[in-house]
């Protein structure tokens, strides 16, 4: 069911979230926006997927969260990459690169 799709995306989504946070503290909405900007509007993460992933990452200790006041005067929950998160991001990026490289090689062979 829906779970399979989430599982498939989870690793990638986790990496995207971590990457967006590597540039600074953000709230949920900000994460979505940043991923969209960075991907030239190609990747649009849905809220329904973002928050479960974000919470899971928080439980894993890769990000920490706190409530704060947004520049617009509204309160929002801000997420910040922890040291473990930064390490995780590096690992994930490295393995992602390997994967892309491997796929590229396979594709060139045809």
């Amino acid at each position, binding site marked *: 069911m829906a779970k399979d799709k989430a599982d498939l995306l989870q690793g990638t989504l986790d990496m995207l979230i971590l990457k967006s946070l590597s540039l600074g503290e953000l*709230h*949920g*909405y*900000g994460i979505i926006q940043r991923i969209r900007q960075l991907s030239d509007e190609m990747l649009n993460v*849905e*809220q*329904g*997927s973002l*928050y*479960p992933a974000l*919470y*899971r990452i*928080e*439980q*894993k*200790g890769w990000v920490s969260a706190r409530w704060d006041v*947004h520049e*617009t005067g*509204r*309160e*929002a*929950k801000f997420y910040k990459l922890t040291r473990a998160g930064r390490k995780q991001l590096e690992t994930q990026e490295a393995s992602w690169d390997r994967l892309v490289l491997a796929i590229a090689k396979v594709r060139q062979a045809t």
Partner: protein
Amino acid sequence: MKWWNVLRDRLRALRGRETVINDIDREMRSHLELQIEENIRAGMPAGEARERALRSFGNVNRAVDAAYDVKGGGLFETLTQDIRYGARMLAKHKAFTSIAVLTLALGIGANTAIFSVVNELLLRPLPYRDADRVVMLWEVTPEGRHQNTTSRANFRRWREQSTSYQQLAAFSDQRFNLTGIGEPEELSVQMATPELFKVLGVDPLLGRTFVPDDADSPVAVLSYGLWQRRFGGQQSVVGQPITLNDEKYTVIGVMPPNFQFHIKQRSGTGRPAELWTILPMPNGPGANERGRFLSTVARLKDGVTVDHAAAELRTIHARLSDEVPQFNKNFTAEVLPLREQFFGNVRRPLWLMLGAVGFVLLIACANVANLLLSLASAREKEIAVRAALGARRIRIVRQLLTESLLLALLGSVLGLAFAWLGIKALMMIIPKDLVSLQSVGLNVTVLLWTLGVSVLTGIIFGLAPALHVSRLNLNDSLKEGGKSESSQASGSRRLRSALVVSEIALAVVLLASAGLLIKSFIRLQQVDRGFDTDNVLTMVIRVPDARFREDAQFVNFFSQVLERVRHLPTVRSAGIVNYLPLYGGLGSATGFKILGRPEPPPGQGPVTDVRVADSGYFQSMGIHLLHGRNFSDAEQREPRHVILINEALARAYFAEEDPIGHRLDVAMFEKPTPAEIIGVVGNVRYDSLIDASPPAVYFPHPDLTYSFMTLVIRTDGEPSAIAPAVQREIRSLEPNQPVSDVRTMNQVMSEWVARSRFNTLLLGLFAGLATLLSAVGIFGVMNYSVALRTREIGLRLAVGAQPRQVLLLILKQGFWLTIVGVVLGLAAAFALTRLLSGLLFGVAAIDVTTFATISLLLVIVSLLACYLPARRAMRIDPLRALRYE
């Protein structure tokens, strides 16, 4: 994953679900607001901005739910939900719940009760230090009698020649008269070498136990019970003098309350000791070879195994057989671990009982599984709705299993109450020789066992129905016309039939075992024991050795007692014997020679039981004089060297000729003392009802004088009524003379068969319970089946079937289920009743009559159980049944 973060979130959610949801909600809302502001900044009007934001967000509730899955209570929360839901469900179906809980409680209660006994006797360490290092040493006689006592000389040789033991101690149970303080009383005394307490590793409560220097000194150690009863529990008792058998002893110590060391099978008193004295071990030669009356207990050295010790003892004994052939020819020896000594003979029955209650529990499980299935069919729609709303299968199975576990736990709570009552009842009927059973109870081990059993049962009876129900097809169940027999319903019926068949099979095994035991028990009662137990009173009179100097004085005392007793009203006859049949201990046995016949080589001569009795004994016990004559008055006044022999001896050694007038030299005396056979009496089963009587000779009291004798009185009417008058007569003759073991012969018998009765009663009870439960099971299944087939039966009736045919139709269905169960059960019984072989008497482990009887019984019972649903089927109104659609 940092599991503690997850755990923290889960627990936080468990404490306050609202707080967690609020937090998520707040975050989602802040997200929405940010989006709306963004939209407004992009130039949209407020209304549109909000609408667009909402649309892009999607279903807010779904998002919160998805987030809650991560942050929420998870397994913990579903568990509490499941429990709450399950509890509500159980409360709603009160009838179902109470029947299921009661059924389980019976099964679990019986299990707990039996386990508590098993735990106490077979699993818990014995109350001695490092009890697994303590062993008993015995001789084995040339005739193959095991656990035979040894002589002083042989004990000394064992002690000198063995290397396996830290220490060895010899002991012998005797009866001493305690006088000088209040009422005279006969005590059970363990005479032991000083090492006894060292070997057992038990310290005294007060004072000290024996030390090597005590050898031959008149010192005594009290049991806690005796100390409390006769000395008021006073500390000052240590150092105080007491009078035992008219001799002075000094109390040196008191043992703790739970201390006991009683080897029932080889005890001369049949009771646990209340007092310990030093066993004299004189150093002279010769006399020490005679008389095998010592039990031996020893503590193994570290690292020495029982097998090694046994091999060593056999070697020593083989040497003795060569060195001292006149006493040890063909004797061997054995070593027994203490637990084996105490409980070796109950281990198998106890495990069997535990197996039997296991069967009862399995039947109870099958029944509850069946109940759950019927309940599940009533809940089909509820479960289908849950599935339709998106509950996954695992979630539904989990819910149903939680309910089963809840039932099992409720059952075990009630079961513990049953077990408590059961243990009380067990303690009342358990044979007393199963030692210190006062501590059997609900301890931690037993509670853990019960918990384990109930969780296991919950899973056993819950899993099949849960898996079955969760596989239901949504559409079929949601459709209103779920009354007809769908494919699932038939699947469920197959499952139920299988359950009932196994219940019946299990019940057959239990019934077969119980049937065999009952038959053995009846056979045991019917054995020709050679004496008549009705209207006979017995009591033991023990005259202190120090009271009289001459044998004639003892003889005279007992004949005076008899004279007085015979004149009491309702007394028909009275006599004396040294050891009563089946009194719970051993008599004496020794070798003999027949004068005028060639002498057999040492160790191969004939052996006979030896008893001392008077003519009145045979009369009072109803032992028939088959040939010759009884003892005359003169022969009972002074030694005339005459004996009576039993039929077995006559048959074995005088098959061709008349034994009367032959002379036997029975090795009971220091020098050869031939005695003339004057008569032959009937065989009596003295040691056991099971074994045939060995040869026996009877001496009159003057020829072989004992200081203790058992009075045997035959009365008109209730024998125990005469007891006070008899005791008064004895007291008037000798004020300081106690009597003990006042029992009717029927009581003696009943104590002897206590163990057999206990096994029979218990297994019979379990078998009855099993039958009842399986009857309930088959009733439930047939009832359900009739409900499912209402329409079909209505149709049959409508097209002209006779009600009687419908009745037969249902009965036939039940009959086949029963037959399949009975056949499977008989097959299992053929394989399993072999385990009973040691407990059976006069009946083979596979007994066609018994098996046929119990099969018939079970068929009748289950047909009766089917009759009610069948009658209901017969009365179905065709019109209403057909309108049901």
